[in-house]
């Protein structure tokens, strides 16, 4: 179902703009229409777009404050009447100018400490890698004869480096080997200039501060202590910042809410135009909200409500109720119907459950899926989980029809058992296919009628011509199966209809003549094939019902072969998990395929744009 949206325009005095736009934001039911698509250029030239950056600066200061505290603001603008807040911008400015510098200074100090901690943590990592070297680094640094370098190099280049200096007075120790790099400790004769060779080799040196002395193990202990001191200092500063914030928490919240509302209003002002005294806005809204808007304007005689005719199609607002609402997610996966199309969601819901249940009919497996889907939906509120839960219920219902519980056919079947009625189920699937395709064509015809697309209605392969051809073909095939001969009437009329299709395609193909001849032929050929293949495609409904029983039979046979009852149980348990997980997924995909490919492509143009009402944004 779709909710019809109406376009409206309001002309209001500029001094009422904040009140009007706040109301629009509060309702969350208005999508602004660019005035360029309504007004003529001459009129537009007389209007201007108001400046919207007025509150940006102070808003970013508040956001900065929240960020430094490490909190996300959660304003509740709908419940607030800004005219009754008794807040002046001057007060807010004075407040933020007083609080922010204090918090900023503390925060800066904390960042400095964090940087120092980061540096010392890196030093510690380096020193940790050097633990195997039991030498006082200060002694080595001040040695008259040696120099040392510590750093890393790509694993591929270690041997090359060693090879290149093997005739020199150089000692290379591999102190740590990681996934991509090797850490090296290189000692060499002081006179030897090794820097350029090391750099060329891709060696990157890491140097420690000269303030460290002792062996790497001793430095490591020293650094660990220093890091603990830094951690506690950071913690103290953090607490101080939070204290500063909590002291003013109530004011910060109120002031931020005030600025937040004004900023959002002024952002929305960007989508309006105004003269010196009047503001013009235009938007799409629901019928209910339009009525409320009218009542609101009745009590505000300075504002005028007008209806308008934008030169674009209205956006789409899917409005399915209750159970069907959750299946909108399946429709959205494919696309959004345009406002003049039928919303297929209710049909999608019914067909999805019927197809899934038929392919995966089992009381036990269905209940597991239902528990899984609804259980997670209860926590996560994700529509797809609701769909899985519903599919589980459908499976259970079909399981009762088939008489199957966790693969065992231990309850009497209300309908028929698939494995005992293979031909019946395959034929039944085809009948469902014929019904689905016919229904899709009828929906297409309704869409064509709604949009007054006469040509499409009559000649499209999913229009009246297509439906006629399809049913003549279906009846002819049925007669062929009953009598053994194809009815002449069927052949002649199909031939005529194919001819009409070809002429239609030939006339309306945009290409050079020779290309049109060939292209039209292949188009018609593809259409004919698609009637046939799409109908046959529904055989999967029966095939998967058989497959479900067959897959369990395989696990059951394996379980019977095992003599140990524990092994038997494990095989059956794992088998059922695989059936629910793997086959459940495959059937889910197959169901989507039948909906999207066989059903949707015959009538659903996916040319809509979802209704996107104006909302407060953080």
């Amino acid at each position, binding site marked *: 179902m779709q909710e019809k949206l109406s376009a409206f325009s309001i002309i209001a005095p500029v001094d009422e703009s904040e009140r009007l736009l706040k109301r629009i934001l509060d309702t969350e039911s208005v999508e602004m229409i660019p005035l360029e698509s309504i007004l003529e250029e001459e009129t537009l030239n007389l209007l201007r777009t108001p400046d919207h950056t007025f509150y940006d600066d102070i808003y970013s200061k508040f956001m900065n404050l929240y960020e430094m505290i490490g909190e996300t603001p959660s304003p509740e603008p709908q419940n607030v009447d800004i005219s009754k807040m008794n807040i002046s911008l001057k007060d807010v400015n004075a407040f933020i100018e007083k609080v922010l510098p204090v918090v900023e200074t503390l925060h800066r100090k904390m960042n400095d400490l964090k940087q120092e901690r980061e540096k010392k943590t890196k030093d510690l990592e380096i020193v940790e890698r050097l633990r195997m070297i039991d030498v006082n680094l200060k002694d080595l640094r001040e040695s008259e004869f040696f120099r040392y370098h510590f750093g890393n190099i790509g694993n*591929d*280049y270690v041997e*090359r480096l060693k*090879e290149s200096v093997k005739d*020199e007075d150089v000692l290379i120790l591999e102190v740590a080997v990681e996934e991509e790099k090797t850490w090296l400790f290189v000692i060499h004769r002081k006179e030897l200039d090794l820097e*350029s060779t090391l*750099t*060329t080799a*891709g060696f*990157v040196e890491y140097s420690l501060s000269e303030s460290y002395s002792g062996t790497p193990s001793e430095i490591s202990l020293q650094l660990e202590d220093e890091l603990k001191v830094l951690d506690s200092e950071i913690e103290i500063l953090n607490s101080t910042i939070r204290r500063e914030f909590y002291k003013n928490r109530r004011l910060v919240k109120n002031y931020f809410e005030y600025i937040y509302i004004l900023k959002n209003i002024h952002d929305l002002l960007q989508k309006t135009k105004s003269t010196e005294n009047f503001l013009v806005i235009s938007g799409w809204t629901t019928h209910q909200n339009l009525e409320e808007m009218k009542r609101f304007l009745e009590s505000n005689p300075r504002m005028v409500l007008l209806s308008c005719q934008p030169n674009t199609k209205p956006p789409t607002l899917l409005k399915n109720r209750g159970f069907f609402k959750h299946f909108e997610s399946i429709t959205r996966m494919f696309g959004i119907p345009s406002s003049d199309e039928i919303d297929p969601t209710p049909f999608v819901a019914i067909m999805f459950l019927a197809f899934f249940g038929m392919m995966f009919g089992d009381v036990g497996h269905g209940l597991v899926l239902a528990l899984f889907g609804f259980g997670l939906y209860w926590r996560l509120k994700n529509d797809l989980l609701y769909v899985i839960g519903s599919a589980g219920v459908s499976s259970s219902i079909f399981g009762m029809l088939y008489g199957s519980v966790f693969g065992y056919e231990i309850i009497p079947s209300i309908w028929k058992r698939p494995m005992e009625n293979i031909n019946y189920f395959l034929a039944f699937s085809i009948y469902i296919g014929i019904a689905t395709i016919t229904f899709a064509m009828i929906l297409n015809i309704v869409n064509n009628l709604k949009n007054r697309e006469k040509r499409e209605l009559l000649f499209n392969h999913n229009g009246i011509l297509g439906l006629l051809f399809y049913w003549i073909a279906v009846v002819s095939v049925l007669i062929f199966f009953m009598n053994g001969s194809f009815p002449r009437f069927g052949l002649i009329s199909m031939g005529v209809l194919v001819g009409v299709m070809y002429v239609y395609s030939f006339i309306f193909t945009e290409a050079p003549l020779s290309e049109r001849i060939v292209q039209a032929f292949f188009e018609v050929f593809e259409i004919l094939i698609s009637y046939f293949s799409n109908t046959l495609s529904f055989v999967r409904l029966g095939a998967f019902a058989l497959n479900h029983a067959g897959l369990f039979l395989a696990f059951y046979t394996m379980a019977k072969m095992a003599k140990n009852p524990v092994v038997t149980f494990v095989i059956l348990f794992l088998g059922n998990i695989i059936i629910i997980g793997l086959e459940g997924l495959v059937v889910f995909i197959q169901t989507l395929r039948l909906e999207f490919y066989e059903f949707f492509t015959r009538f659903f143009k996916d040319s809509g744009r979802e209704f996107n009402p104006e909302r407060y944004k953080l």
Partner: protein
Amino acid sequence: MKLMGLSAKVKAMKSKMLTKEDFKNLMKTNSVIEIADYLKQHTHYQRFLKDVDVSKIHRRDLEILLRGAIVHDLYRIYFYLPYDIRKIFFMFEKRFEIENVKFIIRIVHSGYFENLSESKLYPLYHKSVDESSLLSAKNMEELWKVLEKTEYRVPLENAYRNYQTSGKVYYLLNALDLWYFLTMKRKLSGSSFCTEGIRDLFYLQIDMTNIEWIYRARLLFKLQPSEVLNLLIPLRGLLERQLFVELSNVSSTEEFLKKLSQTPYGKFFKDVKEDDLPFVLERICDRILLDKARRLSNNLQNGCDVAGGYVYIREYEYKDLVTIIETKRYSLSFEEAKGYLVTFEE
């Protein structure tokens, strides 16, 4: 017989490559416009030039079109490759991406941003880097921020730190080249299916590249032996490790040629005069490689060999075309120009 479909496809593509006659005609042209016109009228480049008004074409535009053609040829081969082999051919294309990245690094380093545009890059079909982000970098820091989120972080991490301290861009360029060779080596080691011929060709390429790099680093740039050794690809084909040590210790061209003549590639260098070496070294190395690639590509039994060899031969055709275009820029005669080509021999 292996991968005959691939073999047939590549041989069909190979049959359309430029002939000796084409090269002669191209060298005899008087301008870039005439080159473009000839390519449009008589060669397989026709499809890339069909919508181009060659009478107004600029040298750079023609080179860009030729780049597009070589990458497109590689792309056409993909569809005939088994999955196992495809990763190797991805690497062949990856080399063009590396060239793009190197080009951008050079420009950003030099600051001549007016030379930087997407049209000057190889138009790739498989990309691992968002080129528009690279192109939007205004300095090396910004460029690094983009690159460090890509697979090039690994080879460039250390090189970038060294670049920061030294300002020498060749650390970055060299690191990318080395990464290509090391990664290709891993891919080839991991693929056991009919890639022996490509592997041999690849190791020959490594030997040739190392010879050229040693010559440049030691005799032209006068680097220390230990520095020279650390510039090389840490892989070897037929050359011994000791030879690299000896070559990087030479002090003259004569000594370099003498050492080289004792290697399995010695016969190609025995008649080379010392004074000519700077001008002919690259061409000799290219011709050794081209010769091997041609032999590989003529293999009737293995489609992999045919395709692998073709990729190298095709690249030399591109290089020679670029050389011919350059000869017009410097107004070289036919006789002068032909000496610079790799694929052309009278």
